[in-house]
């Protein structure tokens, strides 16, 4: 691992970002002064309990929300709108366009952004569909795919764009344990192959350690940075090992301590 202080500057810089939702009655602060940096080739994981603002943070980086405080910049440019340089894989299965086949879905953003067109786009699309093992389903409409397959199409679609950073919001949360494990392995293999940069949201400690190279642990609502940990040395094979379990334990205690405090506070109200 190259030393971060001497290598290239970070791709993504999130600096003291506070994100809020304004509804007609409430003002909800989802994250409070969160800072982190993502470097090229990172598998950066945002980990935290449900409702701590992980999705909100990802939406901020995606350009769908503007921070009320702090700045976010990608390659030195302030993020102020959504764009194809940050491709998002959503948690929901309905992110594919139902009126397009798998192949057309993967080609669509390439043609929208004008990055690749026609035969070249089709060729790239086929290449990435093959990478997620869906070659046989290229001509099929999304409603004929299983949830896991849809998710894989979304990943292929995002990766084919060669974005500066890939944003994934609990992409495997709705899958069964077996499929999830397979998809995690696929993602790691793809990373080995293509070396993309990914910002990955999850609330599973195990998934964070397996998939990530670095973990940002967020505190419960509103989300604040609790710790930043390294986990690039762990993969699926390390899962039973002592070090793996120690790290898992450590994060667990970190999150769990908060929860006990929160519950104690709730009890006082």
């Amino acid at each position: 691992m190259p030393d971060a202080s001497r290598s290239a500057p970070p791709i993504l810089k999130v600096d003291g970002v506070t994100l809020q939702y304004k509804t007609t009655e409430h003002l909800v602060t989802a994250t409070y002064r969160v800072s982190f940096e993502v470097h090229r080739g990172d598998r950066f994981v945002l980990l935290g309990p449900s409702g701590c603002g992980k999705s909100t943070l990802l939406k901020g980086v995606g350009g769908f929300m503007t921070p009320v405080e702090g700045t976010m910049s990608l390659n030195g440019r302030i993020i102020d709108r959504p764009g194809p340089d940050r491709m998002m894989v959503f948690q929901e299965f309905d992110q594919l366009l139902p009126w397009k086949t798998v192949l057309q879905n993967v080609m669509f953003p390439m043609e929208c952004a004008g990055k690749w067109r026609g035969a070249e786009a089709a060729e790239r699309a086929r290449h990435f569909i093959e990478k997620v093992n869906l070659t046989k389903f290229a001509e099929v409409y999304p409603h004929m795919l299983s949830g896991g397959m849809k998710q894989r199409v979304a990943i292929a679609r995002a990766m084919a764009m060669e974005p500066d950073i890939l944003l994934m919001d609990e992409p495997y949360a709705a899958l069964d344990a077996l499929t999830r494990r397979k998809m995690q392995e696929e993602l790691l293999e793809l990373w080995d192959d293509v070396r993309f940069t990914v910002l990955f949201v999850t609330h599973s400690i195990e998934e964070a350690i397996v998939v990530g190279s670095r973990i940002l642990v967020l505190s419960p609502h509103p989300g604040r940075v609790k710790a930043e940990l390294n986990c690039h040395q762990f993969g699926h094979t390390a899962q039973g090992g002592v070090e793996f379990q120690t790290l898992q334990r450590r994060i667990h205690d970190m999150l769990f301590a908060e929860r006990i405090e929160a519950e104690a506070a709730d009890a006082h109200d």
Partner: protein
Amino acid sequence: MIDTAGKIEPPVRAEFELRDVAAAQFGEVERPLSAFERVWNQAWVRRAAIVAFLALAWEIYGRTLDNPLMFPPFWDVAQALWHDFVKGPLLSRMTTTLQVLILGYSAGLAIAAVFTTLAVSTRFGNDLLSTLTAMFNPLPAIALLPLALLWFGLGIPSLVFVIIHSVLWAVALNTHTGFKSVSETLRMAGQNFGLRGVAYVRKILIPAAFPSILAGLKIGWAFAWRTLIAAELVFGVSSRSGGLGWYIFENRNLLETANVFAGLLTVIVIGLFVEGVIFRAIEARTVRRWGMQR
């Protein structure tokens, strides 16, 4: 089984594992359907059978009643239809009606498109459309005919005016509702690809809302068709080249009841054709193929 504490306990059973599951055990795995089953599985065959049955019942009733002035049998109507179509005025009446209809329907769609575009892009447009649809959607188009006659006189402009009124609100309301219910995820996906403005509406919103848009088109079509026939019945008298409504009215005055039925049949057949062939084809090619509608 109830143990000593009175709690229900499921019985413990022996385990087993099946080694070879022979294919023979499945019973009938695959069997071609008989010719009759295959034909009967086609929806249009079943529907055609219903229509044939109705025609037969009509024929029998008409013959037993033996009162062609009130209720001519099916065969007489079929003959009148054939005769007026080939030699009589029915074909030209039909084309007149269809021309006016297509003119009014497309004008209605164009205005609806303008209204919904306004409604999705500005809050004022949204309020405007909501208020106008709430006001005018419940108003039967035919009720505007006297006013239309006053403004535009007898003739095509009046008809087009009432058709536009009958199409516009239904289509605009459905399209707008469709746009509003496009899922947040799809919207964000579209924006993520860098789509904005007109391209965003055209490439994301319209296809995503297509089931609602299509429903609006169908309702608008039905409204337009009914309104037009009714309007023609009312004032076809003095327009030089009347439509189907006028044909029906004219033949009633001449007590040519079989021709009245022939006119009604034409109205039904055109309605069935547009609904069952044109809209069905669009549906099969779009929403049903995309799995957005069964």
